[in-house]
């Protein structure tokens, strides 16, 4: 059974948090979600079907030739980073001072 603590755990794994009311609304929503999901389980013999992860079957996919092509410059890659240093994105040290 889904609990508020489990929801907080899922959110933490996804690296965000919500306020308490947000978790309450999510919990309420899960009741509806489970009812909806149960409709899928009602389909007869569904477990015997191979899941579909792509709209249609592609029998072969072309790979391009292994030659270098245009790529972003260093400046372009760093253009949106808020802190940079020595051509890299700067973040706090992993180990302390």
């Amino acid at each position, binding site marked *: 059974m*889904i609990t508020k603590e489990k*929801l907080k755990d*899922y*959110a933490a*794994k*996804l*690296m*965000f*948090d*919500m306020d308490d009311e*947000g978790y309450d*609304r*999510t919990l*309420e*929503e*899960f009741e*509806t*979600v489970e*009812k*909806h*999901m149960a*409709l*899928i*389980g*009602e*389909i007869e013999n*569904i*477990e015997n*079907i*191979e*899941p*579909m*992860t*792509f*709209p*249609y079957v*592609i029998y072969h*996919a*072309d790979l*391009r030739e292994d030659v270098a*092509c245009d790529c*972003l410059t260093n400046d*372009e*890659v760093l*253009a*949106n*980073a*808020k*802190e940079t240093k020595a051509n890299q*994105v700067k*973040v*706090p040290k*992993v180990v302390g001072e």
Partner: protein
Amino acid sequence: MKTIVDLRNDLDNKVVTSDELFEKANKLAHKYQDEFNPFVTIIDEKIEEESNSILSGIPYAIKDNFSTKGILSTASSNILKDYVPVYDATAYKKLKEAGCVLVGKTVLDELAMGGTGTTGHTGIVRNPWNKNRQIGGSSAGSAAAVALGIVPFSLGSDTGDSIRKPAAFGGVVGFKPTYGRISRYGLFAFASSLDHVGCFTRCVRDAAIVTDILKGKDERDMTSLPDEKVKYVDMVDNDIKGKKLFYIKELTDLDLYKDAGEETLEVLRKFKETIEKCKNIGFEVEEVSFDEKLLKAIYPAYMTISCAEATSNNSNLTGIPFGPRGEGSNINEIMFDARTKGFSELIKRRFILGSYILQRENQERLFKNAGRLRRIIVDKMNELYKKYDAMILPASGGVAPTFDCEIDRMSPRYLMLENHMAIGNFGGFPSITIPNGFVSDMPIGINITGRCFEDGLTLNIANKIEEVLGFKGIVKEEYDV
């Protein structure tokens, strides 16, 4: 209201210049922005590349989840509120090279995850036909920009019906071609196995013109399809006599809607009238039965697959290489803070659902079963397509909802008629919505979904139906300037 073809003629005959077209579009964009909010960014400086294509000099708008180099691209989310891409989406690049003139980046439901046009970080989009109503989503601003007559076409994306539903609510044409027909490179991914690039236009012919420019193999998108070297615009006038259409009994039989509201009943009555008109011009149209259990399971399966894929696709939004940086003493805290502040509550609820679906103990029961349901439905459709050329259905069970409808939360009520268009995403089928008249003074649409890879035939069928319906290019009188 002028179509692309009309504007092309005007440009070629020097009735108007592309500068004048841009100035007019820019003026209208500013005029309607406060009232209807279609744009995140309005481009005030005309940028046009030399081209002799049919779209050269034509103004357009593009949804703000397409990467446009040097132009803010937010996906209508605070987590990208200051993001300026360093590369172009292929679809945008192709339109630039065709000489199209960008008028603005349009509002969407945040990260394309919504169907109301109300969850974008810069505010709600109002329906040009009635300001107290939604225009649907997620491609809300793109639909509104065409419905208001600001531009003759715009680009959107469609993962569950995000072009085809707002097209119905906005009284315009919305086309989602076969999966892979238009490259998704540079489209911010929502659910990669369901995402499609498509367009809004004033008529089916224009949708064919735009798709002709956009289609083709892209080395940067390995799911893109080779160009078949045909032009869809050359196919839209083909004879359709003997082409076979089907509609689903369980979605359209009035006897099954005894407790429905008058709006729904009127939508269905108009749909039946449309069926007769189709027969009168030479289509063979038949009613087929579709297991109601499958139809009811479409929405849950769509939510399962899309939330799971979205949770994964959006894990790159950390505020480190781009986006507003969070605060914290270590990298984990910084990412946590950025994501907590940057995503709205609705998006967080969707991601939590996606995470729940992907937990090891739930994968079989939820994620894999949704994939199985997807295959059952797609197989059933492909079986039907051995006999029929297209499916035709109402695009929605009613008109555009008012803003005080329950909009934010997942509704306990599910309406099969509201969610069938996800079939087009499950199987990658080409699918188009065209106007089908009015109910309660609001536009309604019908949806035509064809066989995979047969975009030309689907556009041909839609064009012939559009001709006989008589609602081509409908526009509210005050916008028809």
